């Protein structure tokens, strides 16, 4: 199409009547920039250790496309019903919504979709290609299960070796029933195993089966976790009234019932294990206090768990440390404490030095110590390089020994379910690359992350965050029933509507609606730009609520 210029009056109409449209005029030539629809990473995506594509699945939930949403989550996270209940949700801390009101309750949404998937999506056995190398996974905690899950999707035959009688690792033994019901755990694990993974229970590698035997496997992923409770290294720690907090949790999860009615229990620690042990002890009838070295706001445990503990009547003594234990009688110990003060030095580092002359004593019938766990390394193959408490492995789980990969609490200093899941997945990718002799494609390049300043908040209205639906405190204290009931469908839809969808286009049509030059068009649910007409005004970029479009310089233009 060209501009029409009549060459003779004979060709012309009698009046200035239009002959054709203005499409010949490629006004794109006016512009030195062109808008590019380019998804960026949302801070929640960036911060999720598992790598879940959060804005995408939240948008699908918004559209009630639950199956699609579930599939997105399961691309990276094999156990959303579990993580929705227990993960420490770093995604929520990074959530940009906090600039408007409160961060999104992503945990509730993940739990919802995980539960929905378990109820509605049947599991089909995945076809296994026996010509591919066989995989052994040692340990059926979150890391091992994640690794197995991702490798079975690629058709690898997999055997998981689990030394205990039931699978799950810390999920089963470390997390109390009222946070993660066994029924849910079993259902979620079954949905993974039913893909065709062989699980050998009561089978410890290095004892029931030798490491030599595992040579028949093409690659081995070791994720035996960390169960050795750390010592405080103070006098009296080996008194029988002083026990590792993890022990109470494991025993309770194995079904043992403790009667601690009227007992005074102190829990030393500031992480989730401390809170879990405290609330477990409470449910056994005890009167519980937690001693934390740091202030309450700086405890490592999630603030929700701390809140629930406080609601249940557990006391938290902040900035306290234990100096020594003394035996009083078979059921009582004296706990000698000191107070700490909080100091911030010039570089911003926080320290808790002892306050001189602040000694005081408490008595307790039981002291539970929760200072973290280390891994048991002796029974592992000698070839693996280790340091004091971990196996040395890189980001992809590669160890010093070929064929051996490691992940989860065994190899990471960040000992959380989410990190374990992420490490299992990355190890699976690395193992697949190794066995298929292909290069490892790192899909996680440097993609820009959408910050608050990149959003256009005019398009969002304040809306309160949905509160978790918790059992009333009084009934909670004496029961191991699940405390958090999860949100109902209306609550889910209200909450998911609050998602900004940072950096991820969700077809809101703003760029399409506001383009003065008809240069943005819709191609199904995607947008494209007619660069031949776009004048580069930039309104589409300005009005995108979620930073999914930007202006790029055209080739050859000076900036």
């Amino acid at each position: 199409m060209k501009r029409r210029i009549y060459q003779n009056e004979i060709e012309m109409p009698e009046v200035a009547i239009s002959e054709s449209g203005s499409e010949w005029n490629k006004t794109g030539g006016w512009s030195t920039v062109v808008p590019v629809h380019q998804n960026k990473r949302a801070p929640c995506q960036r911060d999720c250790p598992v790598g879940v594509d959060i804005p995408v699945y939240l948008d699908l939930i918004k559209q009630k496309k639950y199956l699609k949403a579930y599939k997105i989550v399961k691309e990276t996270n094999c156990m959303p019903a579990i993580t929705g209940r227990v993960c420490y949700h770093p995604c929520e801390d990074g959530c940009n919504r906090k600039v408007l009101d409160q961060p999104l309750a992503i945990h509730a949404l993940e739990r919802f979709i995980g539960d929905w998937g378990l109820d509605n999506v049947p599991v089909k056995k995945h076809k296994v290609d026996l010509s591919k190398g066989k995989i052994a996974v040692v340990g059926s905690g979150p890391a091992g299960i994640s690794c197995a899950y991702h490798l079975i999707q690629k058709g690898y035959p997999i055997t998981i070796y689990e030394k205990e009688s039931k699978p799950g690792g810390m999920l089963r033994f470390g997390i109390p029933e009222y946070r993660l019901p066994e029924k849910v755990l079993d259902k979620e694990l079954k949905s993974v195993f039913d893909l065709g993974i062989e699980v050998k229970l009561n089978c410890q590698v290095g004892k029931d089966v030798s490491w030599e035997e595992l040579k028949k496997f093409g690659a081995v992923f070791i994720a035996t976790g960390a169960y050795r409770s750390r010592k405080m290294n103070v006098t009296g720690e080996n008194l029988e009234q002083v026990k590792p907090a993890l022990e109470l949790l494991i025993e309770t999860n194995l079904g043992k019932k403790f009667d601690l009615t009227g007992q005074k229990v102190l829990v030393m620690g500031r992480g989730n294990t401390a809170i879990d042990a405290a609330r477990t002890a409470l449910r056994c009838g005890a009167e519980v206090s937690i001693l934390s070295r740091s202030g309450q706001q700086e405890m490592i445990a999630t603030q929700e768990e701390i809140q629930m503990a406080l609601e249940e009547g557990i006391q938290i003594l902040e900035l306290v440390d234990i100096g020594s234990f003394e035996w009083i009688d078979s059921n009582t110990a004296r706990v000698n404490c000191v107070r700490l003060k909080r100091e911030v030095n010039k570089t911003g580092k926080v320290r808790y030095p002892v306050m001189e002359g602040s000694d005081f004593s408490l008595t307790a019938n039981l002291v539970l110590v929760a200072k973290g766990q280390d891994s048991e390394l002796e029974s592992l193959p000698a070839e693996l390089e280790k340091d004091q408490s971990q196996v040395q492995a890189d980001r992809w789980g590669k160890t010093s020994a070929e064929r051996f990969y490691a992940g989860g609490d065994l190899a990471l200093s960040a000992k959380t379910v989410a990190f374990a899941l992420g490490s299992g997945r990355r190890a699976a990718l690395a193992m697949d690359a190794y066995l298929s002799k292909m290069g490892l494609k790192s899909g996680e390049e440097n993609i820009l992350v959408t910050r608050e300043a990149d959003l256009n908040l005019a398009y969002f209205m304040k809306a309160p965050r949905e509160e978790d639906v918790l059992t009333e405190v009084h009934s909670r204290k004496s029961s191991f029933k699940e405390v958090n009931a999860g949100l109902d469908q209306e609550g889910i839809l209200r909450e998911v509507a609050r998602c900004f969808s940072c950096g991820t286009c969700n077809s809101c049509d703003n760029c399409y609606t506001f383009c003065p030059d008809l240069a943005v068009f819709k191609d199904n649910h995607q947008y494209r730009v007619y660069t031949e007409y776009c004048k580069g005004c930039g309104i589409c970029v300005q009005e995108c609520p979620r930073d999914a479009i930007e202006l790029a310089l055209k080739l050859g233009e000076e900036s």
Partner: protein
Amino acid sequence: MNIEEAAFQEAPFHPGHLACAGCAERIGHKLALLALGPKTILVIPACCSTVIDGIFPHTASKIPLMHTAFETTAAAASGVKAALLAEGKTDITVLGWAGDGGTFDIGFQALSAAAERNEDFIYVCYDNEAYMNTGIQRSSATPFGAWTTTTPLGQTKDLPKKNIVEILAAHRIPYAATVCPAYPQDLTNKFRKAKKISGFRFIHLFSPCPTGWKFGSDLSIKLGRLAVESKVFPLYEVEKGEKYHINYRPKGIPVGEYLLDQGRFKHLKPEEIAVIQENVDKAWHELLLKEKYSQEKEI
């Protein structure tokens, strides 16, 4: 929907038109035509839209478009409608689409007359608050304090903006409304509503102009939003000149936030901004009273 209607819904006019980058008139025009549909005839006087439509023998318009002399929009539209009615064609919308110069000033006489006669067409004034097509001269739609080439620094406009909607409401026309492209759903609703009403309908369309107001071309929608949020440009309707309905009650932001992003207001001193704020507040308050009074009258 047949192929032509579908194509119209995709793009109610052709790309390749000559509007400045970021022109809000085009956004408003697009949304208005999408709401009115292709059975519409445009009457456009001398204004930016004339040039935007392009040069003979091409046009950006997909519907019949009559170019007419500067002050004649309302009269020409009356004539077009009369001819259609003489032929018994009652289902075609005649749409006058004029700038503020051709509405508030030179076209005012014909506008008032057509309103008084209750001529059956929709008159849209897209208001970029000056004679932009001839290079930014002041009109009676130019707001207090604005720079234009005929109100340069040292003699910026010291008179208030004419309130065109109130003037037309006084004519007791069936429907008058304000719209802003930054609120596309409200705009669309009002055009759809206007289409169904018979008689004279007037729509005042706020049209931020990057070239004349001196701001970056990407801010046209943002400024439209700020104008509404600061109550400088309230969104409301008046039916039959009596029934007032405010469509949106913003929480309110200081006028300074709206004014100071625009080069044409950069010279304003704090005292002048305070005067503008006072006037905006007063006008808003009066509008609230009018709405309340019109509601009470019905009881």
